[in-house]
């Protein structure tokens, strides 16, 4: 690079040559910084920022797949796509399904993750690594592979789940084919697949809970549950908040589980907002799909804003 100038002039050097040299050094630093930033910026502009803005524009137009080559020669229809979405019975159903998934799935995932973290943190001393590894495995595996396996496991007649239930005298339902059970099945699968992430973050958060407090409380005769309730939980509040919000944001966009396992059925019982976006994209309704994606974006932004507000109150 061009930065072969002398080291920065000593403080107080106000003579003209020193000042000029310093300005030249600053300019060189700026040039180098932008040179380093350039590849990122080009790719980011092209593949993130531009699509984000174009999507916003599209959401106010009647763009369809036939307009692919001329995405700007389309009619601006104002908020029509948005009003259409809010009165579209299938999209309303998709919103309700997503709410069901988030409101049941997030607490369930959180409780399982926290229980696993507490048990691994102080409950046991041996084999911690094995349990941690095992519990985390579903997080890192491909949803498609997972779906192939779960479709077998949940099979009504010869699936492993119903076979095991049969041993204890329960007649298992048609998990993925019955509109009543399809969503609970997906929620259970999502919990199985995602609690490992929360567990790892909780394990890190638990390091901040001083063990001496537990010991003191135990000497005073506090039970394990009471210690958890009155020491661990209050100290873990920020972490719990963080995990619940990140899990919530992820679940708001849930897509892959119903996409590969149920295609949104039966009877739209597992169709999520993201799935509906993809479906409308598939039908070639690009403008409409874009408007739905922005509705999801707004919901995610609201949840994020609530997180910031709550975390600030925490401090």
């Amino acid at each position: 690079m061009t930065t072969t100038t002398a080291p920065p002039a000593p403080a107080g050097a106000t003579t003209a040559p020193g000042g000029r040299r310093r300005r030249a050094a600053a300019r060189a630093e700026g040039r180098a910084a932008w040179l380093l930033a350039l590849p990122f910026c080009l790719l980011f502009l092209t593949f993130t920022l531009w699509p984000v803005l174009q999507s916003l524009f599209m959401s106010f137009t009647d763009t369809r797949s036939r307009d692919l080559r001329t995405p700007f020669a389309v009619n601006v229809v104002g908020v029509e796509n948005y009003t259409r979405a809010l009165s579209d019975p299938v999209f309303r159903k998709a919103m309700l399904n997503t709410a069901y998934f988030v409101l049941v799935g997030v607490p369930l995932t959180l409780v399982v993750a926290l229980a696993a973290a507490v048990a691994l943190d102080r409950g046991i001393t041996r084999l911690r690594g094995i349990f941690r590894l095992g519990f985390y495995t579903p997080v890192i595996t491909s949803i498609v592979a997972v779906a192939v396996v779960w479709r077998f496991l949940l099979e009504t007649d010869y699936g492993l789940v119903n076979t095991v239930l049969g041993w204890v005298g329960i007649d298992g339902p048609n998990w993925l084919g019955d509109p009543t059970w399809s969503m609970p099945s997906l929620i259970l699968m999502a919990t199985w697949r995602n609690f490992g992430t929360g567990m790892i973050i909780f394990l890190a958060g638990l390091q901040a809970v001083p063990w001496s407090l537990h010991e003191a409380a135990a000497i005073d005769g506090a039970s394990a549950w009471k210690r958890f309730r009155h020491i661990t939980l209050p100290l873990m509040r920020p972490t719990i908040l963080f995990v619940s919000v990140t899990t919530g944001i992820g679940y708001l966009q849930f897509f892959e589980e119903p996409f590969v396992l149920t295609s949104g059925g039966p009877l739209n019982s597992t169709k999520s907002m993201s799935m509906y976006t993809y479906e409308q994209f598939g039908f070639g309704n690009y403008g409409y799909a874009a408007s739905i994606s922005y509705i999801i974006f707004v919901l995610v932004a609201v949840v994020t804003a609530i997180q910031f507000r709550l975390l600030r109150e925490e401090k």
Partner: protein
Amino acid sequence: MLGSRKGTWWLYGVLTVALVAVVAPFAWMVLGSFKSDAELRSAPPTWWPEAASLDNYAQLFSRLDFGGYFANSIVVAVVVTAGNLLFCSALGYALAMLDFRGKRALFVVVMTTLMIPGVVTFVPLFVLVANAGLVNTLPGLFLPFLVSPFGVFLMRQFILGLPRDLVDAGRVDGAGELRIFARIILPLCGPALATLGILTFLGSWNNFLWPLVVAQTEDTYTLPVALALYSTGQNSTQYGLLLAGATVVVLPVLVVFMVFQRRFIEGIATTGIK
């Protein structure tokens, strides 16, 4: 002192049952990949294969082109990972150590996009890639993922923690800014690069929706796309074949994960992002 011995044993019991429940689907998948379709369809299901064979795998790589899909997955994941490591660390360094006009604005814009759902960019991204003639090509699969705001965030945070004197010392020695980045800073970023590298590689390996839309003929399929299409298409009843395919998708990831387990988990604990 805190837990009775009986309580501890009870806890081990519960954890072991939970572990079996969590891991059983994977064990069943691997074992199932050695079974025949007839055995997979029998009720009650078997656990160990009655007549283990490699037929399913032989079919996967001869009749179907899983070798080719595997290669596509590897190429895309390696290119995406390399791009993220290089470009995100370069910007991360500039944001952490250098002064330049527009720095704050750039940082704010990049960080704002962190929370934008992927579904928002999906449609225009497809329009863009289609108009560039990149549908059904490998560049169409990897170009949109070469950089990530998350990678910048991770690298910037890490580099902020390095001593600033390193940069000044480099300048005194007459090294240019790019040289300081490449020779002094980057070699110290090992842990952050490892975390970012593993997360990016796994993310790309498991990425499904984008390749499903962009890869339209067999020669550009990645593993998850091929598996998804076969599991809903004409091979949907060849259970053994599908389980073998799922095993081929999952095993490399498990191996990578076991090797780098510790670094990986530290990365997640500090960034909170999977």
